[in-house]
């Protein structure tokens, strides 16, 4: 009986050991921090006039907000954008409103360059989320099988890179009262599955 138990122990132990190795592999998964910063807020102007009509911040405007997303260059990120309620800016949420069309684009060629940006929100009916690799042409020297894994299992890297999301858009000022109109835009960023 003692001999039988010893045999069972020997058979069981490698199985546990194998399990431990599998988990250890997961530890190697891309553990690069995901860092998200923004250049500021989206300001359409401080001296806008009643009935002024359309006011735009185009993609290449210096007033466009640049969101920098730094992480594993080979891994993809999910970006989800929440528009202000009613697609409008308002005075403290009151019924005084300015229609707002949020627009967004991203550049993932490793450079902050609006000329290379891909638009993913162009009007109020556009889907508010997208997924892209942090760097489209990540150039880590590490072969795909040797590096860590992205969250979804695809080959990751030990190298950081930065992708850029641009937030811009249009408002239309009609016959409204003077005041400061605001609205919140939220961005959720996470490594893609």
């Amino acid at each position, binding site marked *: 009986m003692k001999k039988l*138990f010893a045999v069972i*122990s020997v058979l069981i*132990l490698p199985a*546990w*050991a194998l*399990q*431990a190795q599998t*988990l*250890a592999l*997961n*530890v190697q*998964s*891309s*553990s690069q*921090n*995901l*860092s*998200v*910063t*923004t250049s500021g*807020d*989206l*300001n*359409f*102007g*401080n*001296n*806008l*006039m*009643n009935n*002024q009509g359309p*006011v735009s911040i185009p993609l290449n405007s210096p007033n466009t*907000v640049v*969101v920098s997303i730094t992480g594993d260059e080979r891994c993809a990120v999910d970006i989800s954008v929440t528009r*202000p309620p009613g697609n409008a*800016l308002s005075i403290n949420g009151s019924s005084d409103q*300015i229609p*707002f069309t*949020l627009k967004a684009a991203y550049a993932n060629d490793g450079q902050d360059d609006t000329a290379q940006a891909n638009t993913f929100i162009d009007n109020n009916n556009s889907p508010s989320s997208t997924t892209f690799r942090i760097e489209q042409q990540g150039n880590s020297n590490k072969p795909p099988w040797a590096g860590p894994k992205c*969250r979804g299992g695809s080959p990751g890297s030990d190298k950081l890179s930065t992708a850029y999301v641009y*937030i811009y*858009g249009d*408002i239309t*000022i009609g016959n*409204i*009262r*003077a*005041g*400061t*109109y*605001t*609205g*919140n*835009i*939220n*961005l*959720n*960023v*996470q*490594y893609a599955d």
Partner: protein
Amino acid sequence: MQRTFTLLFCLLAVSSFTAKQVSGQDQKSSRISINASAQVVESIEMVTVRNMDFSSVQPSQQTISIDPLSDSNTGKMIALGNADSQIRVSFVRERTLRHVSGTSTLTFTYEIAGNDEDDQSSAEILQTDNRDLTLNSEGQYYFWIGGQVNVENAKPGNYNGDFTIEVEYI
């Protein structure tokens, strides 16, 4: 048996620790908030309180001069807009006055004084392009308009001209 249990416990501990690492990685996300804003201001209105008054010019006069800081014959205007807003004021200093029934002209050189209080004597002389002026807490800014014109060789009669002052928010 005891040794086996100890070994199993160690392995469980390793797997538990490792799983926590994976779980922590699943939380690798970030959320940021961007404030979109637009400030709409009242449009600026210019109100003419009174026009410049030259009275009648005597043949012996060579020049007519109205001091914007002290003369009661100055023109007076008020800019009305958003309280405490910065404004830019610009004007053309020299304007041509034309004889109403002839071709004679006179050149009028404007001088303007401005103040955020309704007090001419403490006003400041404005240059042709001023960027550091501010409407007062009631959204007002006062202008007194004077100047000089040489009438030494002017033909008798009435002369008309206009004066343009531009006020805008900065």
